[in-house]
């Protein structure tokens, strides 16, 4: 890689990726947790079982997830303009990614909550705990280990998704690899970026695995 020529751009790409991934993990994580918990608790027979709300959430997730990211980006353009003030660059890309990541994470959260022993939820109900308290103090802690793994999974997905930020001028490492590596047939650049991403993912996964093991009180 020609560091003199690409060095600054590369560092900028790293910054952009950090920005996009960081905010997406935060916003998408919160959104996903909220929707995922919503899906779980409103499921038939569960804590706040509610057909209507479940159907709406379920539909929303099903609508957003399969839309190709590019089309999704454009489709929410007006919303992005309202919220972020612009439709190109790193911020709007982050906005779209957060939404998409939220809907993706929602399913992961839902999935992990399904495996909780209903006995403990029952114990909390028997003590008069409110649904909100049960969510906060039972559902999340009891499913923490798989939730951490799910969040790590999301991280890798978001990093991957951030490569598509290039479509809206969001830049980032993935875009860097494509623009300066792939399209230039410069496999050296591509390889370096991929290695960087793999190392980051390896670290994240190691962290996730470790935290999950700690959270798994067995």
């Amino acid at each position, binding site marked *: 890689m020609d560091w003199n020529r690409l060095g600054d751009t590369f560092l900028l790409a790293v910054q952009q990726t950090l920005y996009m991934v960081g905010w997406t993990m935060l916003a998408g994580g919160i959104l996903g947790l909220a929707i995922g918990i919503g899906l779980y608790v409103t499921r038939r027979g569960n804590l706040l079982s509610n057909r209507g709300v479940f159907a709406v959430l379920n539909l929303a997730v099903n609508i957003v997830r399969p839309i190709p990211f590019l089309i999704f980006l454009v489709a929410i353009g007006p919303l992005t303009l309202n919220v972020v003030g*612009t*439709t*190109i660059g790193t911020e709007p890309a982050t906005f779209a990614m957060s939404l998409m990541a939220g809907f993706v994470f929602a399913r992961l959260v839902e999935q992990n909550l399904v495996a909780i022993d209903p006995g403990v939820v029952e114990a909390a109900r028997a003590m008069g705990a409110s649904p909100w308290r049960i969510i906060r103090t039972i559902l999340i802690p009891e499913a923490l280990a798989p939730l951490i793994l799910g969040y790590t999974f999301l991280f890798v997905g978001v990093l991957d998704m951030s490569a*598509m930020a290039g479509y*809206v*001028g969001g830049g980032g490492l993935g*875009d860097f690899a494509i*623009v300066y590596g792939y*399209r230039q047939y410069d496999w050296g650049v591509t390889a370096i970026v991929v290695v960087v991403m793999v190392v980051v993912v390896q670290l994240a996964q190691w962290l996730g695995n470790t935290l999950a093991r700690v959270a798994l009180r067995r």
Partner: protein
Amino acid sequence: APGSTGGGGSSDDASGDGGTTVTVGVVGAGDAHWDVLVDKAAEAGITLELQNFSDYQLPNQALSQGELDANQFQHLQFLAEFNVNTDSDLVPVGATAVYPLGLYSTAHASVEEIPDGGEVAIPNDPTNQARALLVLQEAGLVTLTDGGSSLSTPADIEDSRVTVTPVDAGQTAISLQSVDAAIINNDYVGEADLTPEDSIFEDDPASAASEPYINVWAVQAEDADDETIAQLVELFHDPEVEAAHQEESGGTAVFVDRPASELQEILAGIEENLRAQG
């Protein structure tokens, strides 16, 4: 718009050195000539900020929303389609070059040798796909509905003696090992260990028929006379920039330096045609 015209969302008067900042949308900021241009612009007191896109629709959209001062990634044909379809009035203010689009093959020495039912890869990006189909029609491999147009897609292939497979532009050269022939953007010809001379068929960039494929700088209508952009247009034809660009294109780029008015005329012509087609 740059400087005082004040339409551009991301432009401002850089007070520090008295220069001006211009944000230009491009597809493929990785191309070497941009580096040279940025340096040249800096010498002229212009801070040229490149906003890279990987998608071809968004640079125009961003420009018409005023989020860019200019863009430079498309030919007149593509710009016309955008204007017509989205009721926009982006205008070309300068030309860069026109590139030949050639058909290459490692398996066959001529178009005639391509077997019936063979497979031909074409780039799937919108600035090249329709043009590639027209090249194939010219080469006698396909017939397009109504003679084809700059909006043609594989769905418009009426009759064909080969299978046409659109792929990512970067994949066309790579795909040569799998297909009988491929239309390859000249950007990628060198990367595939080919030279433009190896093409078994190509359109003629110098002919009038290639006019719609002249690549241009586009701006919002009210910025048509912007000085800074005009300066950039001029700087693009600086020998150093052209040299860098020529090297990249494998020596096939035909530089075009036509006045804005001519370009706008050609554009108007294409737009009229498009509207007539409905």
